[in-house]
């Protein structure tokens, strides 16, 4: 058995390995090693913990075995295009683990309360961990459901989507009712009823087919206050563990409401924010069990999530409050699609695009979420390689909020073997568009809308965009003229030097490849 000092030194080394590991992520060359160093830190922390005391092993072994199998299968099977869903789901698991550890610590503390009463720090930390963990878990489930397109949608669902959607609501509702009935005698009508109502509310909201309903923001405010009040009550009266579960339930409803109305281009912000929460929940758990390595690792993750959230908000020129409570959509001043497009849109063909490449020296590809949906990344790389063989320089210009999570496009292109030094950040790419002969926009819309620069009344006014309109010719590959997430028409499509290729992303690129080979 390890002595307490040895254990703490092992934890210190783990924390250092996490820091070195994250430092490795500052360059693609050192990143693989960095991630492995961090994993080593985790292994050390777990091994040291298991050696630190005499344990009953059956729950530990079963839990680790089940978790490892699920984790490994998920990590090996997931498609790169589904990475946002996966990260969303994993954030949720982190949140759930924090809630459960806090609950377990509370139950255990109350068991020994007569001899060793819990201190103020522990009580506050349990409450914080419960709140953040629950918001993270339910918020992440909603984010997952929206990314996998089965929550708050009107269309018909696939079987697996139905199973997850209705199954989750059913489990939450049934659990809440069972828990309420079981604890009715001990806890009283108010607490038992409250827990049941919060569970039913979560289950009910998740079945809605629209992502907004009246008074939603008021409800968010009320629930936020209620959560705080309950939190204070739990700190004052920790003996009543039912009060803690009511707090978890209320925070859960809050988590669902906060993420339910968010979609499309706002998704990267939410994923980053939930990432930060999952870290902060771990930190709070560290305060519960007085453990430095939890506090340090949780803070690192919390800081990382906050930085990413901030970068994403800046990339949309919106505040976090605006993302969480606001609504992005056409205003009364937004010109209609007919005014913008009327008679000015030029459709093109693969052959015409192939001719554009004759004599071109520089081509920039601007990918958006559409590339992910169409799974077109491999085709894109094939086209780029073909053009490079003809002496054309090909680069990729990537907007920070392109896709559904930070860095989404980069991972997809890396999967398709595109070298990372060809992926230009927005600020790096923008000054080069004047020297770019052809800019190919693939499944992006709002992030290339010049209105952001020109019209101060537009909902995307001030948002930094990729200056595709400054290229000699812009080719936009898109299924139709339908608006993007902001719901406004894009004058780029009607510009003199813009050609529209109406097609599915992947098919379009394959057609262009065929046309280039023939010419």
């Amino acid at each position, binding site marked *: 058995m390890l002595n307490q000092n040895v254990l703490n030194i092992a934890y210190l080394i783990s924390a250092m390995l*996490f820091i070195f590991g*994250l*430092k490795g*992520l*500052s*360059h*693609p*060359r050192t990143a*693989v090693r960095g991630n*492995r160093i*961090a*994993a080593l830190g*985790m292994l050390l922390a*777990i091994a040291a913990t298991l050696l630190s005391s005499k*344990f*009953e092993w059956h*729950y*530990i072994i079963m*839990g*680790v075995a089940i978790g490892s199998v*699920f*984790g*490994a299968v*998920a*990590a*090996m099977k997931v498609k*790169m295009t589904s*990475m946002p869903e*996966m*990260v969303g789901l*994993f*954030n949720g*698991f*982190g949140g759930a*683990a924090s809630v459960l550890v806090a609950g*377990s610590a509370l*139950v*255990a503390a109350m068991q020994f309360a007569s001899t060793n009463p819990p201190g103020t*720090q522990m009580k506050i930390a349990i409450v914080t961990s419960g709140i953040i963990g629950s918001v993270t878990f339910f918020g992440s489930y909603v984010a997952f459901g929206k990314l996998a397109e089965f929550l708050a949608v009107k269309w018909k669902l696939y079987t697996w989507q139905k199973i997850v959607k209705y199954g989750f609501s059913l489990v939450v509702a049934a659990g809440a009712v069972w828990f309420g009935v079981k604890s009715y005698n001990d806890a009283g009508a108010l607490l038992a009823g409250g827990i049941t109502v919060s569970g039913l509310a979560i289950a009910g909201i998740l079945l809605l087919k629209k992502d907004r309903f009246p008074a939603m923001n008021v409800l968010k405010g009320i629930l936020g206050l209620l959560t705080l009040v309950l939190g204070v009550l739990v700190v004052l009266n920790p003996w009543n563990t039912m009060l803690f579960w009511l707090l978890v339930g209320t925070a859960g409803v809050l988590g669902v409401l906060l993420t339910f109305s968010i979609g499309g281009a706002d998704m990267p912000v939410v994923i*980053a924010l939930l990432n930060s929460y*999952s*870290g902060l929940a771990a930190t709070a758990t*560290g*305060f519960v069990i*007085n453990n430095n390595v939890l506090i340090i*690792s*949780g*803070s*690192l*993750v919390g*800081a990382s999530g906050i*930085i*990413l959230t901030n970068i994403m908000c800046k990339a949309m020129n919106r505040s976090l409050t605006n993302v969480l409570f606001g609504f992005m959509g056409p205003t009364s001043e937004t010109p209609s699609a007919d005014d913008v497009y009327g008679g000015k849109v030029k459709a093109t063909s693969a052959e015409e695009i192939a001719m554009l490449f004759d004599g071109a020296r520089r081509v920039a590809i601007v990918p958006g979420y559409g590339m992910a949906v169409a799974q077109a990344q491999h085709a894109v790389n094939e086209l780029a390689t073909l053009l490079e063989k003809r002496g054309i320089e090909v680069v990729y210009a*990537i907007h920070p909020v392109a896709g559904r999570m*930070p*860095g989404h496009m*980069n991972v997809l292109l*890396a999967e398709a073997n595109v070298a*990372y030094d060809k992926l230009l*950040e927005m600020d790096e790419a923008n000054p080069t568009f004047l020297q770019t002969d052809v800019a190919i926009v693939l499944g992006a819309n709002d992030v290339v809308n010049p209105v952001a620069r020109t019209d101060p009344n537009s909902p995307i006014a001030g948002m930094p965009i990729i200056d595709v309109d400054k290229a000699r010719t812009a080719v936009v590959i898109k299924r139709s003229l339908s608006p993007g997430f902001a719901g406004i028409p894009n004058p780029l499509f009607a510009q003199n030097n813009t050609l529209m290729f109406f097609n599915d992303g992947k098919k379009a690129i394959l057609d262009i490849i065929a046309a280039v080979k023939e010419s």
Partner: protein
Amino acid sequence: MDSFVMILTVFILAIFIGFEIITKVPPTLHTPLMSGSNAISGITIIGALVLAGQMENSHLAQILAFVAVIFATINVVGGFLVTDRMLKMFKKRD
């Protein structure tokens, strides 16, 4: 020093370190950063393991911690593996 002030100090300093290192991560690695840091937040497993294994804890406390062990392990194992899988794809121009 009071133990609370001690760990509060650790918390604040760790946040500073976090901001220092993470700002240096380039946008191209933001997705692996998220999945990797997510795996690190699975460190909650430490608390879950102890609570699940302590013999003197009540059955309820152990069961709650057992479920927490499952969730945290998914986070740790899944998070590090998927990050490794992603990072191996990032290559420089030949």
